[in-house]
């Protein structure tokens, strides 16, 4: 699939412009590519390499390190059931087993209709609300087998479309720094003195 669309290219350039070095934008840009296509396409990686001025291999190197980046299609909904300690103490393994049974797939698999991919996730920082899960990174707390059944029914029926965007979209709000408020960004080697407001006599 695709290089970045014109609209996403504009967003990409805005993101790159915030960093002292272009490559710093790479992880956010990989998210942008995944948001566009639902996964990180090879052409998109080539495009990002051009934008941040590194080789495509370097983009792949970064991309392949991080678990959220998928290099092939996954389901519209990525269901991540936490399996780490606090959740395991609250029955996460049984819960994962139940989801497998219910969906007829194993952890790592995708349902035949392409709707749901199931993963066993590591600690999701909701340990007091165990067991927990995320659907496209939206939380569900103190989840029972019945909760999962209801959730999957809702996903199939499209009742959660307003709350849960398709896989690839994480945050639905972006930071925008207004040009008139932005501090000019310089490469680190171009800065040789303390910021003007950090007066000489007050340095620590």
């Amino acid at each position, binding site marked *: 699939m695709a290089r970045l669309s014109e609209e996403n290219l504009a967003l990409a350039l805005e993101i790159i412009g915030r960093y002292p070095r272009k490559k710093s934008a790479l992880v956010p840009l990989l998210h942008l590519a995944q948001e566009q296509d639902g996964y990180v396409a090879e052409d998109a990686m080539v495009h990002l390499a051009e934008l941040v001025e590194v080789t495509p291999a370097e983009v792949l190197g970064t991309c392949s390190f991080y678990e959220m980046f998928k290099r092939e299609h996954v389901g519209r909904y990525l269901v991540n059931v936490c399996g780490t300690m606090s959740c395991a103490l609250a029955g996460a393994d049984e819960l994962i087993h139940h989801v497998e049974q219910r969906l007829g797939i194993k952890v790592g698999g995708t349902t035949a209709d392409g709707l749901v991919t199931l993963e066993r996730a590591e600690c999701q920082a909701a340990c*007091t*609300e165990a067991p927990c899960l995320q659907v496209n*990174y939206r939380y569900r707390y103190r989840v029972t087998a019945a909760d999962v059944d209801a959730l999957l029914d809702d996903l199939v029926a499209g009742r959660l479309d307003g709350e849960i965007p398709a896989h690839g979209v994480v945050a639905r709000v972006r930071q925008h720094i207004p040009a008139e408020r932005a501090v000019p960004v310089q490469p680190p080697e171009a800065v040789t003195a303390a910021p003007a407001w950090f007066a000489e006599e007050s340095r620590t």
Partner: protein
Amino acid sequence: MTSGTTFPHAPGYVAGDRPRIVTARFEFEDSFTLERYLATDGYAGLRAALARPPADVHAEVRSATLLGRGGAGFPAGVKWGLMPQGVWPRYLVVNGDESEPGTYKDRLLMERDPHQLIEGCLIACYAAGLSQCFLYVRGEMAVAQERLATALNEAYAAGFVGRRILGSDFSVDIVLHWGAGAYVVGEETALIESLEGNRGMPRLKPPYFPAAIGLYGKPTIVNNVETISNLPWLLRNGAAAYTAIGTEASPGTRMVAVSGHVERPGVYEIVNGTTTFRDLIYGEAFCGGIRGGNTLKAFVPGGGSAPWFGPDQLELPFEGRTVGAAGSMLGSGAVMVMDHTTDIPAAALNLTRFYAHESCGKCVPCREGATWLERILERIVAGEGSERDLELLLDVGASICPGDFPHASSERLGLTAVPFPYKMTTICFVGPSAFVPVHSALTLFRDEFEARIKRRTTIAVTASRVPR
């Protein structure tokens, strides 16, 4: 406020009759909006800071002994002073990559009070001469990212962030950055690598502190979300008011998540240094005891990387030095409680599997060692282990951590504590952390491993589950 008040909009958080520094606004459903923030002393700490020279603000933070809340507990004011003179620019990187097993506090702070964090970033930048701030939020935290993006957009529009803040000549950008799923990126040099667009692998040490050589090779302060979130209160009320709470060595408050087999798991802002583990686990204002009247078997006092404690350690205060001397660490404010029904070898496997999975692969002892620890534990838990496996586990562990390994004392076993920390052959703590649960479980509950090995012909594979 009565003891044990909860709020549907802040799942997990429990308020009580205790001083509240960082969670004071959590009772408000709209605590994340600029409107609510401004109505509750918002940005008053920044105004107070800007009225003083930066060095004064730094001195105030240093005298408050604001201990880092990310894991190591290093005082923020001292860390800021480690930057070399005359090297510019200096950067601030805020570590919001919370992912240590059992830890749930930074996400609450980002979701419930993003402006408090933003104000804290501005105060830190002003005090230490940092010219740009990167707020690194864990990739999986969609709502935290949205709340921070909205808050930053509001704060820029209102003149709190960016060029000529509040009409002064203080100018700094705060850039929202987000990760993509890698526990090891919580290690500060790996965080910097990730922020440079690379694979998130920790850097070789020395240099030990990014304050000397950090982002783009420049002096960089990496502080935890909770640490930074303390700054607005600290600047509004002063170091004396801050140190009046808690103890001399550990002043202020701390956020602690208590999870596992307790009646009321929750996230509490506790008085630093004086609250004991017994208070936390059994206190009516806190967790109210072990679930169903069960018996406490063991607990993890400071996140998955911390050596385990048993009932012998309940009277210890939640205080860094004391807990270190007793053979563990406070880490990231995460207590995980196991009752007597817990399958100890399976629990150890669960945590070791986490670190084996999250090993970045840079250091051989971690990449190979953690994986082998996981495999050996797997076969023991599956009932296919041998007596030799227990020595093999310790042997593999010794290749990651040569020398004495920290553990708690135990009256039952006649053990005296070996203090934290340990020697290590890896450049970050992921490798040793894979051995921590193995060592703790084997030291305190060797009989359970031996029983599992002896029963191996009859046990079912389902025993790999941690029973409820």
